[in-house]
């Protein structure tokens, strides 16, 4: 069953007097439970694809469906709902709120989604798996980069999103921590069936995925 369906997706930016065609007709289908890596150089359009799938920017044309929901027709409020309920983000820079503890960084995602119930056993297991259970009362600055990224993964999946979007999740990490984070993403994908779409420029990171597609000049090619 396809959880992401993209057809002829185009995105054009206006930069000064020039139109920049970031996406030139992307077609992609991702099955539920799949771990897909989108590999491409800087400027290839992979981040634009990430932003559209995450509801951070609207497409110019084409159709995009996530879990059966069309993004093309969504207004700003609709894209906010999509981010709240259907998508989880993991960014290169971790993007944790520095004033909150690890527990609160996770809880705020739940609060935004309107869920104030205690963490369910399955999520507690994930927290253990990510190796952050003993550090929940610490602030982000007290954690290493690898640990912060694992917290970001926990926060991204706490609301059980349809897809987990990871944008260069190992970009700021050394190789040891990179491998650990990627291994955890793969483990989560296999253990919980969480669909993962990872954007990376690193073929070694892409090797952890089930499938890899190449992005070049705003178009996707099978690897």
């Amino acid at each position, binding site marked *: 069953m396809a959880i992401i369906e993209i057809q002829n997706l185009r995105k054009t930016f206006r930069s000064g007097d020039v139109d920049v065609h970031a996406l030139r007709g992307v077609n992609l289908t991702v099955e539920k439970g799949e771990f897909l890596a989108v590999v491409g150089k800087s400027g290839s359009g992979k981040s634009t694809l990430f*932003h559209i799938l995450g509801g951070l920017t609207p497409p110019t044309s084409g159709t995009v469906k996530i879990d059966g929901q069309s993004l093309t027709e969504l207004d700003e409020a609709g894209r*906010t709902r999509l*981010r709240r*309920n259907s998508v989880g983000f993991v960014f290169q820079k971790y993007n944790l709120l520095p004033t*909150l503890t690890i527990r609160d960084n996770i809880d705020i995602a739940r*609060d*935004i989604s309107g869920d104030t119930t205690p963490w369910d056993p399955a999520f507690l297991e994930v927290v253990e798996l990510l190796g952050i259970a003993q550090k929940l009362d610490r602030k982000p600055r007290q954690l290493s980069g690898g640990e912060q990224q694992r917290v970001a993964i926990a*926060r991204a999946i706490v609301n059980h999103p349809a897809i987990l979007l990871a944008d260069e999740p190992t970009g700021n990490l050394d190789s040891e921590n990179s491998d650990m984070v990627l291994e955890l993403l793969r483990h989560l994908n296999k253990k919980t069936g969480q669909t993962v779409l990872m954007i990376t420029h690193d073929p070694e990171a892409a090797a952890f995925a089930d499938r890899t597609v190449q992005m070049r000049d705003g178009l996707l090619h099978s690897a």
Partner: protein
Amino acid sequence: MVYKLVYENLKHRPVRTLLSSLAIGLGVTMMLALVGVGEGMLEDQANRARGVGADLVVRAPGSSVVGMGSLSMNQKILDYVRAQKHVALATPIGVHSTGGVSSIMGINYEEFAAMGGGFRFREGAKFSQQNDVIVDDLYAREKKLKVGSLLHTMNRDWRVSGVFASGKLARVMIPLTVLQDLASANGKITMIYVKLDDPANTQAVIDAMKKDLPEYPIYAMEELIKQFSVNNLPELKAFIGVVVSLSVLFGFLVVFLAMYTAVLERTREIGILKALGAGPSYVLGILLRETVLLAVIGSLCGILMSYGTRWLIATFIPASMVQAIVYRWWPIASLITLAGAVLGVLYPALKAAKQDALDSLSYD
């Protein structure tokens, strides 16, 4: 959860939080100090009027109820008053303004002392020479005077002959005849204080005198004291209005600047919240709650600082001003400050709520 974030945000920048709260608090202090001084001085005036020991007072035609008055009443009225039935003692008072709210009072010492049960002298005694003056202890403390000190007022030097316990109508007193001479107002007085054989006769005496002196304001002392209210001072009410408006503006500017910089500083964090699915109302709610908390802390600081202004006034200018703590103004001043603060946060909060998530996440 939002409250936790708000609390942590305020805790994260303690200096900003403290300075913003103090600045917001200044507006509250301004209001509380002004209202407190207004009410304190009126209350003090009322207490000192009570200290005369009179049952009623006859004032000059056209004079203000709570004003100081001037030497404008013909002293011959005194004979008429003394001749009235039930009048046990009537003593004339002369008041001369010495600038601002300060005044010097002329009395017939023996009569005045007899009416109120006498003066309690902390040191010295009544005037014995033409240039003698007696002052109350608060005035002596403020002006650093003691018996034998020289006091320069009304263009001449006076010798302090006695320092009495405050609560006797005026802070500075000289013989009435001396005051009349100096003010070139011989035969003129400001008011007459009257003691009756029985206070129960007060209304009957007033009614009788009003028949003969219809243009003279005649008040029972309790009635007069009730008039010592801010409501009877339109100038003070207007001034309070100006200070309240300034406080609103003050709160608005402080919060506007504090929250505007906070929003700029937290652009990326707002982007993170938006990436997590926070809508404009969620972001708006965080900043509004933060502002309300700042205003509450600021109001508490302002209330505490109003005790500080009271201490400063009581320590350095006890005779010139009295500041009361007016509890009923605590919620009023706090709500006014809150209104200014909420107005101040609106623009930064709306700016934050409208911020583009992607642009915010790219912000370094």
